[in-house]
């Protein structure tokens, strides 16, 4: 029944079914009804992590190390807990930058470096080759085993010519399917909905198959866990497996957990399904627990099956790696065996297809295209339609990788158990961890640092794992491993620098990561990042904080047509139009109305990155935009523009401040106006007070006289006298107020003429003579000779002189009082001083006495007669005539009132 051709037929049928699912999913996606926009599908697609290593190899490992097979699943489980934190950041960045592979991610982070992306690609390809070979080994071994049914024995290793080697044909078939699944056409975003759907399905198949055989063995062959493990415990050979630590070191366990934590994200296939194919960030939330649940389920029966196998095949002769298949066969269940085989096939094909698609993307975008563009081979830059060319490169890469995998299998694969081979690959992709994790969280990581780190780590990995693996299989002399190259002991690959006693994987991991991280940090810190690197560093590390997309560092000119042609060359005409239309939609304009603005260029670059990688896309767009690499000059120009913008904004700031200052001024002016208004109010109130006070006396005495006709005559005289005096006072006051108001409002009449001040002064003295004699105050006058004339209003000026003279008399003591009047000439003006030796005016009152109604004299017992308006009016008059009136005095030391007037024709007068 289980003839080779039958098995082959079933296998092909299964693969065909898988393809059918993929095709259907693709069609649904095109119609806009995607089947994979579902967290469950996403989590299942992540389970492509479980390959035939899980399916077969785990059991093999468990058979020798007990639960020592488990660390590489615990790692992913722990990593899954942090999906929502770390992986989400990676996904977000990748979406924003249209990143299509892990090489793209690294290259993009470190300044869109093509060189770095290329290095990552090389490491990925070399590192994954062993892993692929392990799949081939598993499929061919299981195929070989199955065909021997009902015999259950691992075939002895025999060197078979290539064309007769099952593994070779498996490789060819897988290559064909990989191309069918992943390289049918170019997608700008590198999304393969069909592929994801198929992978999800095959995850279910392999889980089902494994659970089936697990249940069968545990409950079918034995009587349940208790029975199974009871038998195991009874056997001295098997019992130690149940408490393995002692054989398996804790250090190794820990390292493997750590290693697999990295692998579950950084394996190219994992990056592809987890990041590139991710449809919705939110799926990561559910995946954090769904994925570990899957891993739990698929590992549940590993140890039971291993133990059962050891019990059943205690005579040996059956490779533990094949227990999963051998057990159902040994019990005569051929259908189950077939199902298991399909499960294993499923596991292997899932891995191979996704891995090779991911690798081929990297190879074409980050290795081949940049080289071709740089060296202009095949007239690439001039070809009009490159899309089919790109596709051919992709397909070629798939085939090449598979053939490399087969090659490794043939030359080195036989010597190792499956798990050991797989771990070699894990250690290779672990080299991506420092540069990626560093790139996500440390802005200081530079391109040079990343190159140094990757190169160092890769070199150590090559030396400590890959080369020795070839030695084991006889392709390099064994002495290389045992004694070190040229007999140099401390260069022994498994004990470099004398670091012996460690598991080979642990040893390699330790040294390679040390070299990697060390070089990365050291070189980064010692160097300076370029402008694009810095921009990308910020964009990546701050990705979760910002909503913005990549920074625009574009400057150049191009036309929409040129961009369309460029896109068309790589994406094909139809998809190019689609990309432009998408951008137009985003801007709300019709596609015909598009202008070649930086945003469009960015968009074009991103769309192109999907097809040829971001580094190459940058180069291509740069060539179209009439610019080579973004050199320092261009960046300076851009910075110039930016600094201009900054300058404008600073101007705006200044204007704003000026505006604020103006507003403040306005507010102050308003305040002042209000003040003035208040002062006016106060003035009116004060004036009315001043007017009413004499009125009060007048009225009061008038009424008294009226009501008391028989008042004694002397009293009557007195009262009438008061009335008269107060009337005079009132009149004087009213006159002065009106006078002042007229002068201040500019409505007074001025009759100016050329005057001789000396003459005027003498006249004023004459008028006040009576005052002086009355109080016995002496008056002396000094008038300088040859005084120039001044332009003034005679009456007003007289008013001033009279005011000053009467004031001086007022404040002098009788008998001792002396008033001196000096009239002198100064450059351009004439000066008059009225000096008295009276009580003086304290400095703090110097300005107050010129205020309306203010009268200095609180300290006097006598309330001075007067209106309090004399000096203000005098000052107004003097000022109006173009001069100034002021006082110099100290309390108790007399006062000097001085005023100046401009001479005719010299000064200017107030209007």
């Amino acid at each position, binding site marked *: 029944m289980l003839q080779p051709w039958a098995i082959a037929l079933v296998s092909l049928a299964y693969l065909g079914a898988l393809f059918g699912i993929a095709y259907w999913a693709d069609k649904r996606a095109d119609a806009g009804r995607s089947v994979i926009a579902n967290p469950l599908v996403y989590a299942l697609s992540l389970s492509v992590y479980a390959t035939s290593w899980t399916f077969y190899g785990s059991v093999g490992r468990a058979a020798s190390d007990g639960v020592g097979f488990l660390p590489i699943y615990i790692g992913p*489980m722990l990593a899954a807990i*942090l999906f929502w*934190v770390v992986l989400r950041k990676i996904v977000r960045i990748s979406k924003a930058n249209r990143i299509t592979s892990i090489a793209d991610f690294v290259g993009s982070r470190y300044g869109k470096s093509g060189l770095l992306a290329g290095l990552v690609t090389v490491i990925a390809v070399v590192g994954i080759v062993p892993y692929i070979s392990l799949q081939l080994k598993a499929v061919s071994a299981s195929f070989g085993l199955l065909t021997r049914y009902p015999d259950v024995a691992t075939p002895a290793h025999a060197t078979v010519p290539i064309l007769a080697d099952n593994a070779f044909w498996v490789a060819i078939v897988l290559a064909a399917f990989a191309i069918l699944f992943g390289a049918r056409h170019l997608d700008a975003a590198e999304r393969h909905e069909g592929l994801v759907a198929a992978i999800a399905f095959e995850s279910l198949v392999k889980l089902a198959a494994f659970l089936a055989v697990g249940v069968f063995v545990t409950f079918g062959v034995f009587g*349940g866990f*208790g029975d199974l493990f009871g038998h195991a*415990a009874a056997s001295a050979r098997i019992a130690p497996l149940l408490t393995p630590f*002692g054989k398996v070191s804790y250090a190794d366990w820990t390292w493997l957990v750590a290693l697999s934590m990295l692998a579950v994200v950084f394996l190219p296939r994992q990056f592809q399904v987890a990041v590139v194919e991710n449809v919705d960030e939110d799926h990561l939330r559910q995946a*954090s627990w769904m994925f*570990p649940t899957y891993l739990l389920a698929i590992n549940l029966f590993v*140890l039971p099956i291993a133990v059962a196998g050891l019990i059943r095949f205690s005579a040996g002769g059956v490779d533990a790696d094949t227990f999963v298949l051998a057990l159902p066969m040994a019990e005569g269940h051929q259908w189950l065996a077939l199902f298991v085989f399909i499960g294993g096939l499923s596991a292997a094909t899932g891995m191979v297809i996704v891995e090779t698609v991911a690798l081929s993307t990297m190879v074409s975008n980050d290795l081949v295209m940049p080289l071709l563009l740089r060296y202009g081979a095949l007239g690439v830059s001039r070809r009009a339609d490159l899309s089919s060319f790109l596709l051919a490169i992709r397909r070629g890469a798939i085939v090449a990788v598979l053939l490399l995998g087969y090659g490794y299998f043939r030359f080195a694969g036989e010597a190792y158990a499956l798990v050991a081979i797989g771990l070699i690959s894990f250690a290779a992709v672990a080299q991506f961890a420092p540069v990626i994790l560093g790139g996500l969280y440390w802005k200081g990581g530079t391109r040079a640092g990343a190159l140094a780190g990757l190169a160092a780590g890769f070199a150590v990995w090559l030396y400590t794992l890959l080369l020795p693996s070839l030695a084991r299989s006889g392709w390099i002399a064994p002495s290389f491993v045992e004694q070190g190259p040229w007999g140099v002991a401390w260069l022994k690959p498994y004990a470099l620098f004398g670091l012996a006693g460690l598991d080979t994987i642990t040893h390699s991991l330790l040294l390679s990561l040390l070299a990697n991280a060390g070089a990365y940090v050291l070189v980064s810190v010692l160097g300076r990042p370029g402008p694009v690197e810095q921009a990308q560093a910020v964009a990546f590390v701050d990705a979760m904080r910002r909503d913005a997309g990549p920074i625009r560092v574009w400057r150049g000119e191009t036309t929409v047509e040129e961009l369309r042609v460029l896109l068309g060359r790589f994406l094909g005409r139809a998809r190019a139009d689609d990309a432009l239309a998408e951008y137009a939609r985003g801007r709300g304009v019709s596609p015909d109305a598009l202008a070649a603005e930086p945003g469009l260029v960015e968009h074009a670059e991103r769309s192109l990155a999907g097809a040829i990688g971001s580094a190459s896309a940058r180069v291509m767009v740069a060539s179209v935009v009439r610019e080579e690499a973004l050199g320092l000059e261009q960046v300076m120009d851009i910075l110039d523009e930016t600094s201009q913008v900054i300058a404008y904004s600073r101007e705006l700031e200044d204007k704003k401040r000026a505006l604020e200052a103006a507003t403040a001024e306005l507010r102050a002016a308003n305040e002042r106006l209000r003040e003035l208004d208040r002062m006016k109010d106060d003035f009116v109130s004060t004036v009315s007070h001043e007017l009413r006070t004499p009125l009060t006396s007048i009225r009061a005495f008038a009424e008294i006289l009226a009501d008391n006709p028989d008042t004694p005559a002397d009293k009557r005289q007195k009262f009438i006298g008061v009335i008269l005096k107060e009337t005079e006072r009132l009149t004087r006051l009213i006159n002065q107020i009106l006078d002042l108001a007229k002068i201040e409002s500019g409505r007074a009449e001025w009759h100016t003429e050329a005057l001789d001040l000396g003459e005027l002064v003498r006249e004023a003295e004459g008028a006040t003579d009576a005052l002086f004699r009355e109080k016995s105050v002496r008056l002396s006058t000094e008038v300088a000779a040859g005084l120039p004339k001044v332009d003034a209003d005679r009456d007003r000026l007289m008013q001033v002189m009279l005011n000053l003279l009467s004031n001086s008399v007022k404040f002098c003591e009788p008998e001792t009082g002396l008033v001196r009047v000096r009239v002198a000439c100064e450059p351009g003006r004439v000066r008059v001083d009225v000096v008295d030796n009276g009580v003086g005016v304290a400095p703090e009152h110097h300005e107050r006495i010129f205020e309306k109604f203010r009268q200095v004299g609180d300290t006097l017992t006598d309330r001075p007669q007067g209106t309090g308006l004399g000096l203000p009016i005098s000052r107004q008059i003097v000022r109006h005539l173009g001069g100034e009136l002021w006082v110099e005095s100290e309390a108790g030391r007399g006062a000097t009132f001085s005023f100046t007037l401009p001479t005719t024709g010299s000064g200017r007068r107030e209007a």
Partner: protein
Amino acid sequence: MRDPSTVRARLVALFLLGAVLFGYPLLAVFNLPGTVFGVPVLYAYLFAAWAALVALVAMVVRGD
């Protein structure tokens, strides 16, 4: 969705818990011969802890 930074903090805490549960000290503790319901102690512990941790994660990220 609960406050994101709380979720993040809890996830980190669970991660550390996992590191401890599956790390050296606790593993040594459970590395005993004998069985629990017929299942070897270490084996049972590992899978039980696994299931518990996953359940906790599911609760934390559910949030709503």
